[in-house]
C-alpha cells in the first residue's frame, strides 16, 4: 500500500474550492501525467494518466467511482486499474481555516527542524523536477477567510510485484498529491486575482 496526504491553504472560501473541485473537467488536466478522462455516468469515469515511477513513465488506465459526494466539504472516490493490478481510494477535503489549539501549535514547534528539512526537500524536488512554486500561498496568512484543501490518496498494487511497485510509487505519489492540490489552488487564486 502506498499512501500520501497533502494539505494546502489559500485565501479562498470553501465554496469557491468546492465549485471548482466538484466538476472534474476543471481539475483533471492539472493532475500530473494527465492524458484523458471520460465521464461514464454521474459517479463513474475512466482515466488515462502517464505515471512516472522514477526509472520510467508508463500509461495507466483506471476507473474512478465516486463513493461520497458531500459538498462543499468532501468528495471521496475509489479507483481500480484497467491495465494494471491496482486498487485505491482518495478524498478531497475542504474546510475553513481554524486557529490551531495551543497544544497543537506547540507540538508543531517541537517539530520545527523536521518541517524545515521537509520544506527544503520540497524546494529541491521542485528545482530538480522543474515544477512551479505557488507564490500567493506563502505570501501571507493563513487567517480569517482562508480555507484548507487536503488531498489523500492510497493505492494498493496487486499481484506478486506489489511490494516492489509500492516502493517505486511512493515517492512519485507524494509529489502527485502535492502538485494537484497546489495547482488547483493556484488556478483558483489566479482566477480570483484576475476578477479583482
Amino acid at each position, binding site marked *: 500500500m502506498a499512501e500520501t496526504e497533502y494539505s494546502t491553504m489559500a485565501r479562498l472560501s470553501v465554496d469557491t474550492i468546492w465549485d471548482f473541485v466538484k466538476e472534474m473537467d476543471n481539475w483533471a488536466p492539472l493532475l500530473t501525467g494527465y492524458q484523458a478522462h471520460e465521464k461514464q455516468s454521474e459517479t463513474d469515469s475512466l482515466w488515462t494518466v*502517464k505515471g512516472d515511477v*522514477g*526509472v*520510467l*513513465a*508508463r*500509461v495507466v488506465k483506471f476507473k474512478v467511482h465516486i463513493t461520497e459526494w458531500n459538498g462543499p466539504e468532501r468528495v471521496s472516490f475509489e479507483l481500480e486499474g*484497467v*491495465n*494494471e*493490478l491496482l486498487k485505491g481510494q482518495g478524498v478531497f477535503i475542504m474546510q475553513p481555516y481554524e486557529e490551531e489549539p495551543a497544544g497543537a501549535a506547540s507540538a508543531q514547534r517541537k517539530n520545527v527542524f523536521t518541517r524545515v528539512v521537509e520544506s527544503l526537500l520540497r524546494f529541491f524536488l521542485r528545482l*530538480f523536477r522543474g515544477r512551479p512554486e505557488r507564490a500567493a500561498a506563502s505570501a501571507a496568512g493563513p487567517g480569517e477567510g482562508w480555507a484548507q484543501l487536503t488531498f489523500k490518496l492510497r493505492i494498493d498494487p*496487486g*499481484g*506478486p*510485484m*506489489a*511490494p*516492489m511497485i*509500492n*516502493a*517505486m510509487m*511512493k515517492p512519485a505519489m507524494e509529489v502527485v498529491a502535492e502538485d494537484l492540490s497546489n495547482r488547483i489552488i493556484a488556478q483558483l487564486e489566479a482566477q480570483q486575482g484576475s476578477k479583482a
Partner: protein
Amino acid sequence: MASKPARWDLEVDVVAVGSGLGAICSAIVAHDLDQQVVVLEKAPKLGGLCAYGGGEVFVPNNHKMAEIGATDSDEAGRQYLDFLSAGFADPKLLGKLLDNARPAVEYFEKEAGVKWIAVAGLPDYYYPEAPGTHPGGRYLSVDLFEGSQLGEWQHKTYLTPHIPLGVLHRELYAWGGLAKVTEWDYELIAERITNDQRSSGPGMMGYFIKAAMIDRGIPAYVETPVRELITENGRVIGVRAERAGQDFFVGARRGVVLAIGGYDMNKEMARQYEAMPDWNSAAPPYLDGDHMVMGGEVGAAVAAVPPTNLAMFFGYNIPGEEHDGKPLYRTSWECGCPHAIWVNRAGKRFCDEAFYKDYQPRVRMWDGQNQEMPNYPPFLIFDQNYRDRYPLGSFMPGTELPEELVKQANTPRELAEKLGIDGEQLEATLERYNRFAEKGEDPDFGSGSHPWSVRLTGDESYPNPCVGPLNKSPYYGLRLVPVGVGINSHGLRTNAHAQVMHVRSNPIPGLYAVGNSAALLDLGGGYQSGTSNMRAITWGYLAGQHLGRKA
C-alpha cells in the same frame, strides 16, 4: 570544425566525454596518475549504458573465481575468445584485452573500492561445446551499493528500467531466473529500493561514480554535450561543448577520451551500419553516434565487425512506456520460456528462440532469389499456458495486455489473420511443435540445448525448460522489432593504447576511444554477455594509463 578559442572556459589534462563505465574508468586511472580530469556528459544524469545493463563483466580466470570454488586458466579464456572472434578479431587487440582485463578489475577493486562477486552457475554462452568454455564464474557482478554514498549524485545517476533494482545475480538464479519472476522475493526488493541499495548495472556504476566524483572529486558536468573536437597541428587539444545553449570550450592538455557509447538512437546511422530495415534501442536515449561524427571530422578511421553476431535483440515498446521522454523499448526474453515460439510471415519457425545468438543471424538471412529477408519481422506467438505462468515485459499474469501491442484470438488461424501471417502454416507449425514439445523435445532447432539459455529464461519444472506446447486458447501474438542494446558493429578504430587511428593508419595524437565508441576489433565476430563491460573497464584502464604516462 571549431578553432582554438582565445581562452578556454576550462582547461584540464584529460577530458572524458561520456559518463558510462569506459569514461569513468579512464577518468579514475588518469586522475590516479596525477592528471587533472573532467567528465562531460550529454544526458541529465551519469551512468551511461552500463547503468541500464545487467552489470556483468566477463573476465576469464578472474581473481574471484576461487571464492566460489571455480578454477580456470588464461589459456582456456584465450581459446574461448578466439572461438568467439571467428577470425575477425585483431589478435594484438584481443591479446591486450585478455592480458589486461584481470589487472583492470583488480585495480578497481583495490583503488576504487568496487566489491566484485563471481557469479556462480551462469555458464558461458557456448558452454560446453566450444573450446575453452566454463560452467560458471567468469562473470563478475557487484555486491549491493548504497546509493546514499553518492551525495549530490544520488538522484543524478541512471537506474535501469529493465531489471528490478536491488536483485543480486545469485538471488536472481536462486529464485528461478526470468521464468519465475512472479515468485521473486518482492518484499526484499522493495526494502532495497526504499533504502536505495543498488545492484546490477546501476550498482556497478554506483561504485565507479563514487570513486571518481566523491572520493577523488573529479568534476562532472551533465547536460553538457560535446559537439566538436578542437585540433592544433593534427593534435586534439580540446572540445567545444555546450552548456545551457552556450559554447563551453574545454582544453585538454593530454587528451580527450570519447566514451559515449554507440549510435542506437541515430536511426539513419543505425540503418546504414547495421543493415536492418528498422532500429530501436533499449539503451539510454542519448547514444546518438556523436563519436562517429566528431571522429570523422578529424580523420578517424571507422572499423567494423560482422553485424551477424552482436548483442542485438528483438522486442517491443509497450505503448506509453517512456524513459526521459522517449519510447522505451524492451528486449523480448519471452521466447526463452515454455509455451512461446517465433514464426516468420510464412507462419514457420526458423530458429532456436531461447538462444539469441542463433535467432539474430537467422532473422538477418537474405533470400537472394526473392530479394527479401524471409524471417523479418519475427512474430512472437504464445498461448494461455504462457499467460498463466509468465509475464510479457512488465505485464504480469492476470493483467490485460494492450490491444495496440498484442493480438489475441481463440484459434491460431484467427490469430494469424490478425497478425497478417500465413494461418494454415501457423496451424501446421504448432501441430508439429506441440507433438515434440509434449515430450520436451525440439528436434528442429534444439531450443533448450544451451545451458546458458536454460539458466537465464528456462523454467526448470519442465522436462525441457525452454519448451512447452501451445495448446490452450486464447492465443496471443505480436510483431517484434529490432532492439539494440548500444553495442554496434561499427566504431572508431583504435590501437593497443586505445588511441583513435587516423584513416592513414597513424594514431591521432590526443584522441582516445573506449567502450562501445571503439570498434569491436578486440572481439571480432563474436559476443558474450559481460564482454562489453569487460572492454569498457579494460580499455578505460589502458587509456587512463597512457594518458597518465610520464612524458
